[in-house]
């Protein structure tokens, strides 16, 4: 019962900042059962995120086991790759082996219908790099010829603010990196300004 003169006030919310992390929100709060019953849509999302969390952790362990520290290291020995492929063949069994030999023989003897040729590259265009940065940065432009390249802000993999000072102008790729730009890898897609078709990628690495 509320007495006269007593002010009604809402209890303080358990959070002190806006909720922007939907997965955690879905997992921990609004998607839980209400009065023991939960609608199928909410249940699907809640269950999905809980399974996904666990699987992502397991997946990381599996990826580490399979890749053997591949990422960021020099290319693995191709001999080892071939040996692994051969092991797969061996595991499949003798019958499959015989079939593979036949496959190879037949392919060599009578090549199948030619697949469509890959798109022909247009004559290349050279771009100068004009980079303004107080630090040493690595810039990689992977650009297919043709079209009028246009690039948007470079996005970070680690959630750092994007690099907006980038663009193609007068035959040059111009790039400006602020002094306080966090280190990391930044990526952007280069598109044709006229058609919007992808032309390539731009990657910038700011070492720690």
């Amino acid at each position: 019962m509320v007495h006269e003169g007593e002010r009604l006030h809402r209890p303080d919310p358990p959070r002190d900042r806006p909720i922007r992390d939907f997965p955690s929100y879905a997992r921990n709060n609004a998607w839980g059962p209400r009065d023991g019953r939960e609608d199928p849509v909410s249940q699907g999302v809640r269950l999905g995120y809980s399974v996904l969390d666990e699987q992502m952790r397991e997946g990381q362990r599996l990826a580490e086991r399979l890749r053997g520290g591949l990422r960021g290291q020099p290319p693995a020995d191709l001999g080892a790759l071939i040996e692994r492929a051969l092991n797969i063949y061996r595991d499949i069994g003798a019958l499959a082996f015989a079939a593979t030999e036949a496959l190879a023989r037949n392919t060599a003897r009578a090549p199948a219908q030619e697949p469509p040729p890959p798109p022909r590259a247009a004559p290349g265009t050279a771009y100068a790099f004009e980079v303004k940065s107080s630090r040493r940065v690595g810039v990689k432009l992977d650009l297919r010829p043709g079209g009028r390249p246009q690039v948007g802000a470079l996005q970070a993999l680690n959630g750092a603010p994007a690099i907006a000072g980038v663009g193609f102008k007068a035959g040059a790729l111009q790039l400006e990196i602020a002094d306080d730009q966090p280190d990391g890898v930044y990526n952007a897609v280069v598109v044709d300004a006229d058609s919007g078709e992808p032309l390539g990628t731009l990657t910038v690495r700011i070492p720690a």
Partner: protein
Amino acid sequence: MADTLVSDTLAEYGALIRAWLPEYLPKGEPARWLYDLLPDYPNRGGKMMRPALCLAATRAFGGSIDQAIKSAVALELLHNALLIHDDIQDESEERRGKPALNAMLGVPLALNVGDVLALASLRPLAENLETLGPRLALAVYAETERMAWESAEGQALELGWRRDNVETVEENDYLVMVMKKTCWLSTIYPLRLGALIATRGAADLDALTRLGFFLGAAFQIQDDILNLEPDEKYGKEINGDLYEGKRTLMLIRTARACEPEERRRLFAFLGKPRVQRDKAEVAWLRELMQRHDVIAYARGVARGLAGAALHEWEIAFAGLPDSRDARFIAGIADWIFRRG
């Protein structure tokens, strides 16, 4: 509009893959028992969703078709190989509206065709060495190896539950199985592969794992629903999942919701070999499912997962330029419920 975008893109990329497939499906002897059979499943008019997702992700992340085409062809070949193996394991009778290969030829020959299709998928991956260079080709190989492990684990879970008539499978177990069995091959791997190839490893692949999981799980649940409530374009055996005793979300939900006596009868039915599961028992199970409204429940879960997929799409594609390919990938979340 979004539907047209999805169907047009599937048609375009599908035609491209179909043009490339013969390169890796040679002719020769024994034609009757092997080579003539290799193109059978690929020619049955699949929708080519997997390679289309791979090509679209490549382009959305700034890459080109010619960078990814061989990996996409390898994916379609492996998918068809696994379909043959699935049909054998499930003792399926139909595939894409025609008799399953095992029903046409018997298990031994069908198994051999599946093996050779899997082997054929290695060739385009090996050719990536030339197209992509050793570092990226090796990274693609590692992704493929991981996907193959995950798929095999998922298949083992599903088959093991059925063989041992496991009664304790819950909905989260089902989603783990679906993530491994369906999502890795169908959605996670194609998306990761495309982004990996386009950015040479500089993209956040975990974001695509999340997107692929939700897309693939919604896809699988809708596929399971279509098996019970098919539309005119459905190409598999109606109620086939019930005859096979597949642990679908609907079956798990039914087992949880029904009375103890019904539950005993249900697991007695599931414990029988497929040939002993007769029409009358399947009709009883179908009626039990109807009574507990599990199809509507599964449809709701699938919609929730598709919604989460759209949310994850926004995260994974944030900062990329708007493109037809990015919109195609988002459009799959809705297309899942409209496909035949």
